[in-house]
């Protein structure tokens, strides 16, 4: 059972790292601010979510796992809000 949980952790965290790397690549390579934001907020939210999902079996307690989930939710919410605000400024500057 613990082997299964460990395997799940490794797979989920690796998948999360892949999405974080993809988001960073998008940030560096995409041509305009809106596309870069798109890459960053979406891929990072998913990447962090997968890492949190992978770490949840290792948290040791239900409360610890729920705290990890809360951290992901807060990071998603903050990322989404800041993404909206930066996009608004970028669009205003472009027009």
């Amino acid at each position: 059972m613990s082997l299964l949980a460990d395997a799940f952790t490794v797979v989920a965290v690796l998948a999360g790292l892949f999405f974080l790397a993809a988001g960073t690549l998008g940030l560096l390579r995409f041509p305009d601010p809106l596309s870069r934001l798109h890459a960053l907020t979406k891929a990072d939210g998913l990447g962090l979510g997968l890492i949190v999902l992978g770490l949840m079996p290792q948290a040791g307690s239900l409360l610890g796992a729920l705290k990890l989930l809360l951290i992901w939710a807060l990071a998603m919410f903050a990322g989404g809000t800041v993404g909206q605000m930066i996009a608004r400024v970028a669009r205003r500057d472009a027009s």
Partner: protein
Amino acid sequence: MTAALLLDLALALSAVAVALWTVAAKRAFEAIVGFIAFGLLLSLAWVRLGTVDVALTEAAVGAGAGGVLLLGASARLGTRALAEAKDVPILPLRVATGLLCALLSGALGWAILSLPTPAPSLAPLAAANLAATELGNPVSGVLLAWRAMDTLLEAVALVLAVIGVWSVAGDDAWGGIPGPAQPPRRDPALRLAARILPPIGVVIGVHIVWTGADAPGGAFQGGTVLAAMWVLAWMAGLVRPPAVSSRKMRTWVVTGPLVFIAIGLLGCFLADGFLAYPAAFTKPLILVVEAALTFSIAVALVLLLIGPPEAAS
């Protein structure tokens, strides 16, 4: 072992790289972003060193509140900062500055390397006497019992900082509501965040203070989270702080230090001296001090971030 060493090396190298980038940045805004990233990397380094209390403080106060203060200062300077950036000092001055900085860094590095091993430490003494405070977190024990004077002075320093910020207000604006004359721009996304986040943030802030008795946390870290929630609601244009002339507001700022001093004076009569706690009431008194400090720290940080009044109310 090797994996941990690689992680530490990567952390140390990126911290140094971000520090260099911060110093080399051409514009104030870039340097501040670098400073915030540096603070977050530093707090990860503190976690790796096993000092989660310091990591929390660095992330909340150093990178968080410090970074926002710098951002506010850079926005306030605006074009003036840009004009000064063109005014590059002469070469000999730059070389001399670099040499002096290198000398200071070298001296600091030498001082750290020449520390005796094991380093002189009061940690075993603190751990042995922790039971007397009924606290589970030795850091809180040090901050609120054995070195209570330092913590008291830090809280008083915050009050002085608020007075300092207020004292740069113009005569015509004195007594008005803190902050710029124009209320901040109302962004719909920010307004939504400012409505949803504060209930969660307030619970987290209070939790950080409460858990500080037995685990990493405390008044400064929790107070910073509470202050962040207030500043968020202020930035979204949902709340405005009371005017600086209001007695209520001034009372809030000094409540924490005053409660701390009052309980400290109580120690002169009921215990061994100033800032000593009567043995039977150590834990409850520490909790009262923590609660009052948290409240005043949060209010003081908010007032520092919002700045002096710029228009009469």
